[in-house]
């Protein structure tokens, strides 16, 4: 484990408002060590690739935008605001935010940071600890009013460095937000991303999370959402192109009566390992969850889904459904899918199902019987399979050519 310790010691000296958090993050990493296969949450993870993640250091200097901006970027969205999280750049001073958005004050950020760890079980805290240890910036955003601003948040690629990023979003009572997050990878880059969302009563968030890597890029991303009652959170996520990626949406419905929709898509090719570890905890009655997780696994790739749903005694009349549908496209690819329902309450409806299959012969024949050749038919079916999630991404996500290219090249 010497290299792990060396990596921690080589991190830039703690500074800025996150100084204490950096220190405690490093202490926690040293104390707890790397995740092991004995830990249920890390049982299937390719730990060798995780160790490679820890050979990269955050860049010390801010990169020029020209270096970050790549051809894959879409034009800035119409009627929406684009934010780019650049390393070592303080975004808190933004003054041209659209109506309904303002940066959080340092005091507000601090209050949120103090709460972060309490929502995450011990075994699953490692990605947050990595971010705390390596990150010297956090960006906070406050959403209010009834204008439903549209926001695009880009976390760009940068080669051969670790890119830590952390964003906190507070959505006030009755407020709405459309948020499209785009995380891009580059050869030998690594992302450590944390997004924390606090949703007040009756608020609505339509969230898209698109993480597209490249080369040997890796990505650890955690989205934790705390929903107050009568709020509605909808997430559509897409993962593709990472040597290793681990996406962890963690939702807590604090007082019930809320609605959560989680739709996820992994498109795994080559030797990628793409994982989604979701958890939804109902801490009050009459909450609902509608979850659909999809994956296509081709080549020698590995797709992992673990979906925890917790319904304690207090969460009576919860209505939850979780479906994991996977397409295995090659004999060397692997899909692991595990629904994990922890239900104590007795008056609840919880449905779950998981399928791993090959493209359906009847669907293929239907298309072929209309003159469409077998190759084109399977492409159309796969595209349709993915489109079901991609079509629900917010903020004109279809402007991003990478998404269309991804669908165009699907096989």
């Amino acid at each position, binding site marked *: 484990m010497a290299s792990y310790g060396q990596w921690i010691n080589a991190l830039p000296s703690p500074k800025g408002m996150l100084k204490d958090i950096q220190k405690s993050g490093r202490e926690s990493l040293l104390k707890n060590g790397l995740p092991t296969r004995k830990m249920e949450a890390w049982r299937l993870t390719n730990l060798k690739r995780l160790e490679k993640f820890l050979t990269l250091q955050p860049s010390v200097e801010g990169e020029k935008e020209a270096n970050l901006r790549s051809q894959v970027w879409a034009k800035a969205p119409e009627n929406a605001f684009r934010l780019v999280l650049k390393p070592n750049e303080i975004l808190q001073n933004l003054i041209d935010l659209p109506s309904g958005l303002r940066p959080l004050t340092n005091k507000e950020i601090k209050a949120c940071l103090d709460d972060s760890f309490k929502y995450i079980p011990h075994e699953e805290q490692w990605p947050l600890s990595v971010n705390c240890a390596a990150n010297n910036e956090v960006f906070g955003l406050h959403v209010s009013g009834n204008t439903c601003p549209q926001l695009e948040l880009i976390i760009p690629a940068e080669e051969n460095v670790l890119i830590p990023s952390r964003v906190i979003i507070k959505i006030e009572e009755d407020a709405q937000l459309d948020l499209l997050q785009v995380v891009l990878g580059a050869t030998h880059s690594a992302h450590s991303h944390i997004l924390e969302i606090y949703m007040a009563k009756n608020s609505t968030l339509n969230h898209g999370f698109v993480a597209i890597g490249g080369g040997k890029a890796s990505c650890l991303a955690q989205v934790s959402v705390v929903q107050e009652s009568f709020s509605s959170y909808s997430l559509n996520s897409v993962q593709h192109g990472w040597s290793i990626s681990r996406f962890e949406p963690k939702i807590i419905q604090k007082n019930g009566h809320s609605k959560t929709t989680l739709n996820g898509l992994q498109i795994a090719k080559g030797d990628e390992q793409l994982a989604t570890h979701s958890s939804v905890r109902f801490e009050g009655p009459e909450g609902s969850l509608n979850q659909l997780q999809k994956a296509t696994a081709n080549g020698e790739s590995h797709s992992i889904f673990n979906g925890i749903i917790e319904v304690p005694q207090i969460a009576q009349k919860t209505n939850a459904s979780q479906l994991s549908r996977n397409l295995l496209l090659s004999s060397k690819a692997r899909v692991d899918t595990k629904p994990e329902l922890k239900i104590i309450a007795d008056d609840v409806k919880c449905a779950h199902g998981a399928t791993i299959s090959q493209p359906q012969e009847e669907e293929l024949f239907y298309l072929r019987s*209309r003159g469409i050749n077998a190759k084109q038919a399977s492409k159309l*079916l796969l595209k*349709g399979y993915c*489109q079901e999630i991609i079509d629900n991404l917010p903020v004109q996500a279809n402007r991003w050519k990478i998404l269309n290219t991804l669908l165009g090249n699907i096989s």
Partner: protein
Amino acid sequence: MKSQDPKLILEISDLHASVDDQPILQGVNLKIYAGEIHAIMGRNGSGKSTLSKVIAGHPAYTVNSGSIQFEGQDLLALEAEERARLGVFLGFQYPIEIPGVSNLEFLRVATNTRRKKCGTEELDTFEFEDFVKERLKIVQMDPAFLERSVNEGFSGGEKKRNEILQMALLEPTIAILDETDSGLDIDALRIVASGVSQLTKPNTATLLITHYQRLLNEITPDFVHVMAAGKIKRSGGKELAIELEQSGYDWLDNDEVNLGEGN
């Protein structure tokens, strides 16, 4: 509506086919000429649907012997998509739902594939929208169904209308309609039947597969065939359908003497 000089469109000779090593078709003979409407009736499991799928080229079925000639070509040597492009259309008993694939896009790709084969000009997105809107009238279908995924969440009647819409767009030489009447109320049945009648031309042919005579009240067949145990046991005119409606299929169990060949 027979043409003056009838052309042989489909000729099935001594066709034997199986699925999962289970023999289903055991010597089917049938000839269909241009302008003709044929109906195949029979009990469940008699082999009617299998025959339709074998003609269309479903890969799950194995042809063990016999032949199918389509306008003089060996149909069995062709893939399902090649048969469709040549003008063989199968209207499905249970049309398949394909989530995520836009109905409009699917219809456009299918139509252009057929047009390309026929040497007619392919249609761009705008031209196709005009074309499809005109064809929608034949089945009195709401254009909103074009914007949805193929058959997804359609009612039974809507699915069948979507099948006939595809027939209207693809303009096949032979349309095989497998239990198109099943699951339809009488109004939907009339709309579908009227669509089929409008699409029947002197140079095309139709093969209706049905359990019941009620579809044949709406579309009058020139020939009716009764299938049992993988064979055509009897052939006749439209009066055979009426006879079957009255007497049922029980006579097949003890009737040994039948015609083995339609037409």
